[in-house]
């Protein structure tokens, strides 16, 4: 690079760099206490994937969520209406990649800044967009992805057909923008809209699990929250499921050591949420 066009300015810069490197060699930087080494390795910047920061799951995905692709996250259980667990999934991605700016598009503006902050995610990294309905959200998602302004776009969507998801996939590929679709139902209770066919690269179901009260929590009675994370569809890869929990430092971590192999049949099962829940309790 420096040899391409030699100029006095470049030389000076190189000299300064050298000098600075020499000075820094004598200093050992204090290790950051809040972020353990495992997470730091996960936040390594990659041009092709966005690491989740969960080593086993990242290995299963081949490094993390593919960039320039659409990923769908739905919430299980009674959370389909507010999609809090999918929002948690998205905020964990933001937490793992502290340098990412993102756009968050939603028809209901109930994402809470102090909640993000409590998750150690700086809310000022987000540009929020409030749309009126799905059609506008989809339009905004596509505009945002095609603008190349941000590397990550998060959208809360109720209903999405195959054509719309293909459009989004093309928009994501266009400028290598990752799109996270958080499925959010307008109706309370059971909704299987998130099971509609879609062109998403990975499709997730995240379901809260009963927590385990631990002796060392400062608040007896309420342990660290747990989730069941189910990758039920993955392009070019097998589905899998894991149990995860939250560490004290707000980073998620995996409980079960091995990915629990699941067949694709769960995707067609109506009582899916229930079985998963049952499964989660027995596993934990």
């Amino acid at each position: 690079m420096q040899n391409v066009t030699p100029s006095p300015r470049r030389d000076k810069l190189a000299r300064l760099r050298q000098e600075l490197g020499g000075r820094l060699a004598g200093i050992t930087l204090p290790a950051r206490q809040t972020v353990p080494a495992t997470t730091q390795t996960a936040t390594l910047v990659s041009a092709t994937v966005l690491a989740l920061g969960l080593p086993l799951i990242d290995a299963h995905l081949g490094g993390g969520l593919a960039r320039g692709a659409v990923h769908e996250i739905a919430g299980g259980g009674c959370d389909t209406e507010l999609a809090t667990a999918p929002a948690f999934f998205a905020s964990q991605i933001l937490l793992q990649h502290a340098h990412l700016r993102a756009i968050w598009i939603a028809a209901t503006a109930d994402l809470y800044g102090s909640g993000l902050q409590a998750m150690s995610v700086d809310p000022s990294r987000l540009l929020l967009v409030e749309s009126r309905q799905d059609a506008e959200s989809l339009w905004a998602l596509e505009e945002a992805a095609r603008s190349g302004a941000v590397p990550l776009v998060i959208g809360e969507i109720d209903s999405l057909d195959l054509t719309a998801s293909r459009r989004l996939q093309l928009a994501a590929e266009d400028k290598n923008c990752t799109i996270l679709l958080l499925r959010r139902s307008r109706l309370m209770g059971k909704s299987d809209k998130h099971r509609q066919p879609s062109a998403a690269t990975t499709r997730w179901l995240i379901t809260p699990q009963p927590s385990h009260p631990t002796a060392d929590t400062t608040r007896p009675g309420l342990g660290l929250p747990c989730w069941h994370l189910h990758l039920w569809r993955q392009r070019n890869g097998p589905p899998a499921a894991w149990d995860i929990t939250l560490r004290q430092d707000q980073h998620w971590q995996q409980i079960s050591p091995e990915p629990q192999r699941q067949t694709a049949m769960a995707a067609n099962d109506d009582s899916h949420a229930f079985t998963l829940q049952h499964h989660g309790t027995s596993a934990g």
Partner: protein
Amino acid sequence: MTATLLLSSTTAPAQARRYLSLWLPHWSTDRWRLSRKASAREAVTHAPEMPVVAISTDAGRRLICAANESAMRQGFTPGLSLADALARRPDLQHFPANPLDDGHALQRLAAWALRFTPLVMSDNPNGLLLDITGCAHLWQGEAGLRQDMHDRLRRHGYACRIGIADTIGAAWAAARFAEMAPIMPIAGQRKALAALPVDALRIDLATAEALRRLGLRRIGDLYPLPRASIASRFGRLLLGRLDQALGDVSEAFAAAFAPPPHRVSQIFAEPIGTAEDLHRSLEMLAERLAMQLTEGGLGARRVKFSCYRLDHQVSEIGIGLSLPSDKASHLIDLLARKIEQLDPGPGVETTMLSAGKVEALRQSQTVLEAGSSGDHSIGDDTALAGLIDRLGNRLGAGKVYRLVPVASHLPERAVARTAPIRRGGAPAWPHIVTAASGSWRPLRLLDHPEAIEDVMAPVPDDPPLQFRWRHVLHRVRAAAGPERITWEWWRSIDEHTTPARNSPSAHASRDYYRVENETGQRFWLYRAGLYRPEQPVRWFLHGLFA
């Protein structure tokens, strides 16, 4: 030769101004008649000669406050009581006056008058003042301008009188009292005013009456009097008005619409109306405006495309830009998305593109947060600004935003929206509050806390064992809390918007609990107020944890 030039430049300084005063003597009655004409076709046959008066109520008495020409001629002048008037003419048309509406309509007329000059002010209650300095040549002189304005208003059925002079006071007098010679020549107001009655000085009736009693009927009669005696006899106001009218003392002109510093317009020989024509006009104007901005090294932050219609209405669309821009293509792109919102009505005769707010173009942007490192994943600032504009102009102002912290411990007030791009950056979020400090905050906060029912708690001070929210019963498996949050006592109660403001618990403290139901879902509940045996306990759900 040089001496004459010098002399002429001092006697007629560049600041010499020309003012036009428009008087609409029957403004409210004309408006009433026109609105009836618009609402009912049959009313077109309604003879304009019918006397009509507007009525205002003053301490229970109904008085005439405005009248049309025919009513005036028959003696139904303002100040007469309606009862007297009806006794004389039982079929007298009357309607309640609406000065507020008249004022708004006058503002709209002022906006329309911008087609003559950028400096317009409304002269309440029934007139306009225009600073037409340097504008008249577009109408081949002041007479042409006056005639054009007169014809346009007349055609729509407004009675109007127009006067032009060097000073606001003289123009006012010319409009109302000099029907024969409404245009006072440059620096000729002293001579022209001399013959007008003293009422032309914008003084109250009592002063005018007092002057007349002393035989001072015309303004010219005041000229030879010593100033000190006028001041001591009639107060300083009369003297001030006289000086203002003569131009010895300057008078402030408060333009109703600050003239946009950068604007370009296009006047059509034939009115246009189709979206394609408007779009073509927009393109031409945007190119010219962009060129103007580029020359000054400026970028527009707010741009307005105004269409002046044949029927004195102005239809306009506006866009806001998050970063100053001087790119014609960007402006056209944003405005073209809104062009359907324009209503050309009977036709558009003039289009204008104006940059209401301009800022110096900045070559580099550093205001977007979190862009410290040179990482490829940061994204592109100009692309982001363009995106913000496109989103904001389609979804509406305030729909694209960032979150900023507010120094408040009330959960619903702790976060506010702010503009996506601000100069100097947004206030930083205070350092992380997490589990360690004991205050958890949910990821989703409901707009308004929702009341939950069927709450079962063993002791009123304990978290509930079960509750019903949105028709679903949740059994509580584990709970943590409480965290007590009290109202901000330094604010008045009215400032708080609560789910039930009028309930006794509205401004009491809240005890927040985090609870987990059987499936692991976590909620943020609170009990309103302190427990009092005589009051039912009220519970609300305020947010959801992941």
